[in-house]
């Protein structure tokens, strides 16, 4: 059982990371990662929707016929997105304004319906919830990493505007790392998001390649060969 959770963790955070490997949900990923705060906000929102939809889909998976599973998933996801949107509107108004259209766009984040279809619809709800959490976490991590990269290069800060997400006390979180006379505007602009994303993916592939190289040095175990023909 624990190994199942381990696999889920590894998949969500690294092996099958929705953003870095599956390249899902790029639209919000590239659009809102101008700052860490925005990235974190959208990451958490996506994670909540993922957990909710995964659990629901898992619970109803035995009642839903194959033909209508996609519409049902869409209804479930849309419901959760609307709920999250309402909650954000009510409790984190600043962030809600900053993220704008990208909260409703979570509906179309393929990572969510992808998990519903690939995992939640085949597994019991505790695992599905955990899978949603880990996938969401993986997505959020990439979002935050990209946000940090872009915010640092473009503004020289980190956690600018954290109060929008976490309340007034979080104003203190803002860190001015470098003071640029001329910040690299490209980092904040959409092309910067693409380039940054490219570097993140390249970095991951590089690490994987190195690990694979190490793994290949271990000796191989000969597999059993099947006899096509019987010898009698």
């Amino acid at each position, binding site marked *: 059982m624990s190994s199942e959770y381990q696999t889920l963790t590894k998949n969500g955070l690294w092996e099958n990371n929705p953003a870095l490997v599956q390249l899902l949900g790029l639209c919000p990923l590239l659009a809102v990662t101008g700052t860490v705060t925005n990235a974190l906000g959208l990451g958490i929102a996506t994670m909540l929707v993922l957990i909710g939809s995964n659990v629901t889909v898992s619970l*109803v998976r035995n*009642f*839903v*016929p194959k*033909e*209508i599973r996609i*519409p*049902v998933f869409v*209804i*479930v996801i*849309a*419901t959760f997105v*609307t*709920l999250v949107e*309402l*909650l954000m*509107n*009510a*409790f984190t*108004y*600043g962030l809600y*304004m900053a993220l704008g259209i990208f909260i409703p766009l979570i509906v179309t984040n393929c990572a969510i319906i992808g998990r519903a279809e690939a995992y939640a619809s085949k597994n019991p709800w505790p695992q599905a919830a955990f899978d949603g959490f880990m996938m969401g976490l993986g997505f959020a991590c990439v979002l935050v990493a990209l946000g940090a990269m872009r915010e640092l290069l*473009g503004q020289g800060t980190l956690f600018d505007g954290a109060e929008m997400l976490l309340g007034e006390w979080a104003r203190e979180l803002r860190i001015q790392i470098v003071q640029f006379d*001329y*910040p690299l*505007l490209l980092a*904040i*602009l959409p092309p910067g998001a693409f380039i940054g994303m490219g570097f993140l993916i390249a970095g991951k592939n590089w690490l994987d390649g190195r690990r694979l190289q190490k793994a290949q040095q271990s000796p191989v175990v000969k597999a059993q060969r099947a006899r096509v023909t019987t010898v009698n």
Partner: protein
Amino acid sequence: MLKTMQKNGVILGTFAVLATTLIIIAQLLTADRIEAQQRQELMRTLNTLIPATLHDNDLYSDCVLLQRPDILGLAEQPVYRARIEGVPSALAIRTTAPDGYSGQIHMLVALTPQGVVKGVRVLQHRETPGLGDKIEVERHPWILSFDGQRMRSENDARWTVRRDGGMFDQFTGATITPRAVVNAVARTTWFAQSEMDALFSAPSNCLGDPEQWFEDQS
């Protein structure tokens, strides 16, 4: 076949009903808080321009909707009026510069009843980061250069950017953004100066969702 069709329809329908109900419940629960948030947000900006000492009325509801797209940039823009014991003390007009570098720039212009600018703030814009976004007070004090200014005539030559011979600086590398802002503020200020009394005497009529005015009409 008919049976499958019926079954599918019913299941899907059930999900739809459940989902809609859930959303409606959530909306009912959060509606008040959302409205309070919106109101609070607007008040925060209003209060930086019109401090609490300048009014004792409810700014949020003492509000008129103006239909002057030629001057204010959008079909409808609210004007919030501050009074102390019923005497007009200040005025905040929402206005929009339609000709920013990357589309509309939404602003709030506060004036004294005498027509002197108390302050200008940018509410929303999409100008180039690092260049045009110096119109935000958080990034550059440029927007404060309107404070205390007044227009002498409708085509006051000083109310232009320096490059055009006016008194407002432009930023290095960007002329269009400050020019758009200056022009919009000038139009609004002259409008307010010339119609000040009418603005204060009009009945309040803008209860509702202030968010709709943020809708970008570009």
